């Protein structure tokens, strides 16, 4: 979405405009890397248990405010918000990552194939894409999650399904750009099979711009999972950021007396989505992908 031109510097020696990713990009990457590490290793870190009740009679009734003992405070059941916020990264990132992977694999394949072969296959897939896009995405997600057992796997698949149509349309559009180019015609002239042309000629050209959109797509998926969790419709067993935020804000009283219960998970979610968006945006300008939005 950003409209800024990329950071450019003109190298005086050769006059070639050199693009840079910028410091902000690397800060975002560091935060994301940190989150991934946290998500992978929380069970092995010396953290408090996310489900244990740390009742402290000398301190009165929970929720306890942030202190040296509980960095982010505790919730109404005296559970440690810091440990829970870190644990929340697991499901949010896992769902975000697997959803966008599923969406790119399925949507990308359909998009490239229909963009390459055109004809009736293209018409059918285009119609399916439009049908999927006729639902506002949150409505479709709610509809689907209502019908299934809500596990990590199924929620990822639902969000993956949601990303099929936008990803598929992009892949199709990108493929159309290349399908009639000279190098493709040349490959066909010397007798390359369709399969070989798609994999060796088309895919490398389509994959690079598409992959720069993966981070932006993942941001969308993480927000969508948060929204579902906030509405009580995400993974049933387990801690998610959306669920934590909901728990801390379901009554005005909780929010008033113990804002830390929802505000720390909001901060974690916000920084993660911000990093995904910013890094994704930088990558997109870096690879100069235009007219493509998820």
């Amino acid at each position, binding site marked *: *979405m*950003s*409209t*800024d031109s990329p950071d450019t510097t003109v190298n005086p020696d050769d006059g070639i405009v050199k693009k840079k990713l910028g410091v902000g990009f690397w800060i975002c990457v560091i935060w994301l890397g940190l989150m991934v590490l946290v998500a992978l290793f929380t069970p092995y870190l010396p953290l408090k248990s996310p489900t244990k009740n740390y009742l402290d009679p000398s301190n009165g009734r929970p929720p306890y405010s942030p202190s040296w003992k509980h960095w982010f405070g505790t919730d109404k059941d005296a559970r440690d918000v810091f440990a829970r916020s870190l644990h929340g990264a697991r499901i949010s990132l896992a769902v975000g990552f697997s959803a966008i992977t599923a969406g790119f694999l399925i949507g990308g394949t359909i998009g490239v194939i229909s963009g390459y072969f055109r004809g009736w296959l293209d018409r059918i897939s285009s*119609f399916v894409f*439009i*049908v999927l896009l*006729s*639902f*506002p*995405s*949150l*409505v479709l997600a*709610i*509809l*689907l*999650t*209502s*019908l*299934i057992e809500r596990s990590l796997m199924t929620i990822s698949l639902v969000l993956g399904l949601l990303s099929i149509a936008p990803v598929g349309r992009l892949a199709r559009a990108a493929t159309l750009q290349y399908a009639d180019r000279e190098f493709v015609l040349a490959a066909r002239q010397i007798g390359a099979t369709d399969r070989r042309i798609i994999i060796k000629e088309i895919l490398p050209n389509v994959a690079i711009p598409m992959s720069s959109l993966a981070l932006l797509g993942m*941001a969308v998926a993480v*927000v969508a999972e*948060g*929204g579902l969790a*906030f*509405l*009580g*419709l995400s993974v049933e067993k387990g801690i998610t950021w*959306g669920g934590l*935020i*909901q728990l*801390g*804000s379901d009554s*005005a009283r909780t*929010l*008033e007396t113990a*804002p830390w219960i*929802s*505000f720390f998970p*909001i901060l974690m*979610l*916000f920084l993660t*989505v*911000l990093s995904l*968006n*910013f890094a994704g945006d930088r990558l997109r300008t870096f690879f100069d992908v235009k007219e493509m939005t998820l």
Partner: protein
Amino acid sequence: MRYYVQRVALAILLLLAVSMLTFGALNVLGDPLFNILGPVAGDVNNPDSIKMIEAAKREFNLDRPLPVRYGLWLSDFVRGDMGVTFSSTGQPPVSGVISERLPRTISLVVLAQLFAIIISIPWALITASRAGKVSDRISTVNAFFLVAMPNFAIAVILKFVFSIKLDWMPLTYVAGDPLGSRLFQLILPALTIGLSVAAVYQRLLRSDLITTLQQDFILLAQTKGLSKWRILFVHALRPSLFSFITVVGLNTGALIGGSIVSETVFRIPGIGSTLVESVLRNDFPVVLAIVMIVASSFVIINLLVDFAYTLIDPRVRR
């Protein structure tokens, strides 16, 4: 003319596909009988239960094959009868629930759209006129922050700051209040949706304005000595609004998604919060009706935006 007929036909086809998918999914994957009768539906050895099951099947047409049920539902739906809610009494009818709650959602979405437009246009004008300066950069960062903030988080923060800490705004929506105070109660929910949308609009309009401001007629206006604000408002704004209007139209889907969250947080009994409740209660006729209403309005608005395009730029019709 042919273009219009084709587009309308495609829209109808789309809605049929959407309704078939939704109807099929809800009936095949869900268990309507269980939702009507509860545990009784599984109790097939008790003759009393069997009688109730048979009666329920007859009443809700569950003994007919799926395509027939779809046909029955569709013919009712297009005539405005959305069936009965899944409960032992079947009351209240879905149409009643919808007609009571839809106006609240519509006013919420319209208000959110208004806020987004009112905020984004001056914001874009100011930043575009100072493109590249410090204030513009700060605003770009702010826009980025707003876009990255999920709307349920914005809702919680707004509620905390304006309702709880400052006590300026009411906490929840009261359906029985007079119109004026209900509109007042809708301000925070509408801002929840409108703020991040405003950021999206601002980014778009700002970049279009910057392009416009580089054109010759702006230079001419400047050399004529017109004031900066007159140039911005009178000369630059109108030719820059083209894609802005399109995106405002097409963004209705995001607004509806936002209204689901906003209605849930601020306890507004609109169709968004009803959708979530019905999903949790497995009340499929209500879910089906809401999904169809939302998808129809989405498809129809897209159609209207396309038609508006052809009026502005006849080449689209080809």
